[in-house]
């Protein structure tokens, strides 16, 4: 699970190591990545929203 999260994080960040992505795509299941991606997308939304509402104070 941690690997999936790390890979999705890398996708958000836009940087990934060659060796790592080989692992991603040989081991992981697509559905896991998609679910993790959606969840972390939501987390990102909440994070930006939090920063925005703090800044708006």
């Amino acid at each position, binding site marked *: 699970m941690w690997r999936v999260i790390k890979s999705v994080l890398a996708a958000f960040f*836009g*940087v990934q190591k060659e060796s790592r992505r080989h692992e991603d795509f040989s081991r992981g299941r697509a559905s896991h990545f998609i679910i993790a991606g959606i969840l972390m997308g939501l987390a990102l939304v909440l994070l930006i929203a939090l920063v925005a509402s703090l800044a*708006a104070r």
Partner: protein
Amino acid sequence: MRRVWTAGLAACSGLSGSVLANGWNMPVGVTDVSREIHSLHMTIFWICVVIGVVVFGAMFYSLFRYRRSRGAKAANFHEHTTVEVIWTLIPILILVAMAIPATATLKTMYDASEADLDVMVTGQQWRWRYSYLGEDVAFTSNLATSRSQVSGESAKDENYLLEVDEPLVLPVDRKVRLLMTSDDVIHSWWVPDLAVKQDAVPGFVNENWVRINEPGIYRGQCAELCGRDHAFMPVVVRAVEPERFDEWLAERKEAAAQAELGVDREWELDELMERGEQVYGTICASCHQPDGSGSPPAFPALAGNQAMLEDPDYHIDTVVNGVSGSAMPAFRSTLNAVELAAVITYERNAWGNETGEAIQPADIAELLDEQ
């Protein structure tokens, strides 16, 4: 270099010296907010320039240094995690540095503290209506540039397309709250020197505010595509000293009262025709055409329109109340009784519409007063 260019272009366009570009950049403007926005704009611009110089510098260095024609042999590296993480983190830091002043400026712009004056700005195809809330002063502001200038039949004035018959008058050094709404489609009220641009959405109100630092005349335009004459609904703001503003407001109230008096007397047909032609020219001609031919199907012809000529009440009702779901607005609150009577009389007697009827302002006033 720039002079040569512009002079050359001005020469070939056959226009006078006024065509010489006087602005290449965002105006600094005359409010604290506009200054802040300008400096934010310049800061980010220079950051982009620096990044551009670095990035393009590296790129063009590579393009010249590693050409095969100069004997370059390709290296064989294709990833470097540390470098990639660094060039991801540095932009994030730069972005945070940009976001901080931007957030501060935005908060100033959203300041909701008490205003000294509230003005309601209403967009209408294709003019602006201003009402000073609580002051009983309201008027419409139309494009004042003549059609012959647009078509090229006469020379263009210095403020071509940026002049109106009645500018919005605002006091300097007072906080003015601007409430925006629209009667028909979305418009956007914009004056670059005031750094105010706000959409006017039909059925909804938006607000913005301005505190002008210097007296002067500031020009802008509608910024949101609003149909055919989108290019022809300028905004002009005349900022005056507060005392002058108070005088002006008193005069306007007086003038409105005077106009009331004119309503009760009997008006001659000629008088109404003369006044009506003016009103028609500023308000109606843009859609129904100066010769009343309209542009069907959206804008029906008025010349020879039997439905309208046979039934004066229908004609009056349409002008006063508009037609829902069409481009024909209600002029009940835009024009006063004299103007309404005059323009209806004009439409019933111009371009071969020879009804000979004079619609009396008093009758219209009665109609409006019931209201």
